[in-house]
């Protein structure tokens, strides 16, 4: 058996296996995102380009950049062979079996981009010396952590989204930078930005890194910037790539004078601070603190209950949230906080660049910083941090520790996305599978220097199990089910915020520590 497995056939086997698994979820629960994408297929197919960003028959208007609209347009040409009715804009919530089959298969097929990106990342990973069996190689572990990532599986193939394809482009761009092919990396990132603008979160990392390490071709001996080595040619190359991609994507809309309309669709700031389910970030902790203080204030007779704004915390969903005791938070405030949080990271790769891996760290910090402090952040955004961190986790021990905490916490915070009882065994089993694998594989990979996790971290992660049991099993059978249905979501999000904050701080410490000794990685 060993001979066959060592021959390098393991990567296709892993990819094929996970694709087969995805096919079994075709008839699982899917969220409203399914209807969103069906609607976009209909809009791009049935309406002329000038109407794409004005159309609002359905509440799910087109709010991704134009390249994604063109992608949906391409898909719609295949869709018409499955079921023409899904391409009618008026057919709201149309979900015939052929429609479901087509949409699910489209996600599975576009994942081929992700599979290719994972392969490229595995090539970039430094292998350890000596022959080992396949299961202990860093590239194998990375392949499993990427291809069989729990969060991606349930968000893409059950909840329904096209993240695999988009993350594929992101990881491919990162891999290109790790392989020192910066122009290709920049091209891929420009395409990515025009596919989904949430990746603006990590644009500062790209911008500063490319400016500093690509446009300035040489450094001084102590690592500081050598102004004379500035290469205008390279800057021009980068600029033309970005501009041409954006022109390709936004060009038609600028020509039609629809740019303001498109931008207003892409950046809807009318939504609340927190999403319906609170993403595990700073604002979740802030809101809980506020609520706690309000309750305390009422108890201590410092506040009048009537004066407090009626926050619908006891309701099922929370859309708008006015803070009662602490200051209410506005979008600009969150922007300032986000920028402040990523400033040290970006400054460090400007002043003391550490090569492509330093860039990757900065990217992670930008992603996590935006997740922590951003406006209306969705909990799925934690995947932007988890996936690239996998690359660092298989190479270094410290990063593996942070990875384990962030991934387990982040993945658990995705549980409320699948709330149907039929999917419960699947999400629990998949989560256990991924967790067991990541812990044992990373421990084996970085063995020999004592336990991987500190005791406090272990206790925190075990606490996740307690929270899980409490929310999924105990709470539905308790008397509070009727009065406070929001409680499990609150508990999950607050508990996970702690883990995410902790990982954010540790990653920062790691980046700033390496500042002292810049290594060429």
């Amino acid at each position: 058996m060993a001979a066959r497995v060592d021959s390098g056939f393991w990567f296709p086997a892993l990819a094929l296996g996970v694709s087969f698994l995805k096919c079994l979820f075709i008839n699982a629960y899917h969220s409203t995102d399914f209807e969103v994408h069906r609607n976009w297929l209909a809009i791009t197919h049935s309406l002329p380009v000038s109407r794409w960003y004005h159309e609002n028959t359905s509440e799910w208007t087109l709010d991704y950049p134009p390249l994604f609209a063109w992608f949906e347009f391409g898909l719609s040409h295949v869709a018409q062979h499955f079921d023409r009715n899904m391409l009618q804009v008026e057919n709201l919530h149309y979900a015939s079996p052929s429609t479901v089959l087509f949409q699910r298969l489209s996600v599975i097929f576009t994942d081929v981009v992700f599979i290719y990106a994972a392969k490229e990342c595995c090539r970039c990973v430094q292998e350890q010396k000596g022959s080992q069996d396949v299961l202990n190689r860093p590239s194998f572990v990375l392949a499993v952590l990427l291809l069989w990532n729990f969060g991606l599986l349930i968000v893409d193939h059950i909840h329904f989204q096209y993240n695999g394809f988009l993350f594929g482009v992101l990881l491919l761009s990162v891999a290109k930078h790790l392989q020192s092919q910066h122009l290709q990396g920049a091209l891929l990132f420009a395409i990515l930005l025009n596919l989904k603008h949430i990746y603006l979160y990590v644009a500062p990392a790209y911008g500063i890194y490319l400016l500093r390490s690509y446009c300035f071709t040489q450094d001084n001996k102590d690592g500081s910037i050598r102004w004379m080595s500035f290469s205008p040619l390279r800057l021009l190359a980068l600029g033309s790539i970005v501009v041409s991609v954006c022109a390709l994507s936004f060009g038609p809309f600028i020509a039609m004078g629809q740019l303001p309309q498109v931008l207003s669709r892409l950046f809807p700031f009318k939504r609340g601070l927190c999403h319906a389910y609170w993403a595990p970030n700073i604002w979740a902790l802030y809101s809980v603190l506020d609520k706690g203080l309000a309750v305390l204030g009422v108890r201590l007779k410092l506040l009048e209950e009537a004066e407090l704004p009626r926050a619908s915390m006891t309701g099922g969903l929370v859309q708008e949230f006015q803070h009662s005791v602490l200051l209410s938070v506005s979008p600009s405030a969150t922007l300032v906080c986000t920028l402040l949080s990523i400033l040290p990271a970006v400054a460090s790769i400007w002043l003391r660049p550490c090569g492509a891996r330093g860039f990757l760290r900065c990217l992670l910090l930008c992603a996590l910083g935006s997740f922590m402090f951003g406006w209306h952040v969705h909990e799925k955004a934690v995947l932007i941090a988890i996936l690239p961190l996998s690359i660092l986790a298989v190479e270094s021990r410290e990063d593996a520790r942070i990875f384990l905490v962030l991934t387990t916490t982040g993945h658990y915070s995705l549980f409320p996305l699948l709330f149907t009882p039929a999917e419960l065994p699947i999400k629990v089993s998949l989560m256990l599978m991924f967790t067991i694998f990541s812990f044992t594989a990373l421990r084996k990979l970085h063995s020999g220097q004592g336990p991987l996790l500190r005791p406090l971290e272990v206790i925190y992660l075990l606490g996740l199990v307690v929270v899980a049991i409490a929310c999924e099993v105990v709470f539905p059978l308790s008397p509070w089910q009727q009065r406070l249905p929001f409680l499990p979501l609150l508990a999950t999000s607050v508990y996970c915020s702690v883990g995410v904050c902790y990982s954010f701080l540790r990653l920062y410490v790691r980046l700033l520590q390496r500042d002292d000794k810049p290594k060429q990685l």
Partner: protein
Amino acid sequence: MQTWSLVSICVLLGVVVRWGVSLNSYSAGKPPMFGDYEAQRHWQEVTYNLPLQEYFNTTDNDLNYWGLDYPPLTAYHSWICAYAKIINPDWVELHKSRGYESPTHKLFMRTTLLIYIPAVVLYCLYLTDGSSKKKISTLLCFLLYPGLILIDYGHFIRYNGVSLGFALWGILALGLGWDVSGSMAFSLALNYKQMELYHALPFFCYLLGKCIKAGPMGRLFLLVRIAATVLATFALCWLPFLSDPSQALQVVRRIFPVARGLFEDKVANTWCSLNTLIKIRSILSGDSQLYLLACTFLAVLPASFRLLTKPTFWHFKLALVNSSLAFFLFSYQVHEKSILLAAPVCLLLNDLPLIAIWFLQASTFMLPLFLKDGLLVPYVVTSLAFLFFSLYLLSALDHCSEDELRMGAYNKLLFFLPKMDLAHVVRWKFYISVAVMAVLSIVSIALVPPPHLPDLFPVLVSTTAFLHFFGTFVYFNVVQFSEPPSRKSQKKNN
């Protein structure tokens, strides 16, 4: 990586695959019979609301609407499930709740099927030889066997997993030398589903053979212990019905309905396949069951006799396979799902990988059945996954020299044919058969049969399957009569 983590990952993968398959359509059927799911729920209704004595009677219990036709243990299991009344009383109100289906209920039912997986894990870890990686690969392939998954979780006909699980516990116990526990486990399996009778003969012959081989005092002692265990288990299960002999007889009559025909639907059975050439069904009347019984008995005889004379675990496994195949091929009123009783072939995944995989693939090839239930995607996915991963992980195509396939006897039998490399022949036959199965699958879905032959594709599928099963039956009988694996060739397999 440590064994326990790999084992848990394999088990969890098995669970995820099963649950994923169950999310697809089940045997919902159309009114008024509402399918097998409804049968299960109705049994819970009946067992919970009626006193024990009336489970198999017609008094307050309309037997035509999915009457109970399995032995008592199934009835008790339904009764336990009916304690779902605590969670949702609407499910089991007698007479009112026909046709009620809910996702929570589905969930509840499927959780009870976990007797099977621990038995598989223990078997693969303790009773197969090879490196731990080979054992884990065997475990994964065993758990991914599509036939059982599709029938129990997709088609959702019965709790085959429970009865097979008990039987597997019995096999496990016998392999570890715990004869008494093994016989108890198997008696439980028998009392759960009467189809386990397919496996009864090898158990009997193996234990009898062991008794004979033991010393004069030991043999009597062992015989008495085993007989006592079996009788006690049966008595315990049938206790409520033993008070009244006519009761017991009624139960037996429900379990073995001899009023049905020779075969139902298109089964990969000898009789069904022969029926395409000569109309056997009309020739043989109801009384000719004796001939069939004789046929089956004759088919089973060689393997059982060999096991009796050489009661080793290796022969026991082979006899299980041979016996269940013989019963399937020649017996009376065989339903196509009975091929699942050839699941003991999974036990041979480690020793004879290529043939085992080949047979297991053929046994999943019940396409018409799955098409009826809308299980096309799970069928395609699980079959392809099983084929690919078992060939890859067990390196089946590498380990098919003549020695490893134990084809030495074939050479002697086919002495009249020119000498050829049998292993090569086998490999090519494997490729061709997989291609044929793939083509038939595609053709059955894509094309419409000609109007004068409406059953063309089901018949083709079942005949192909039959040829595979018959060939496997002959092969395993030949293997049973050749020499057991030598120590040298076993070491090479690692």
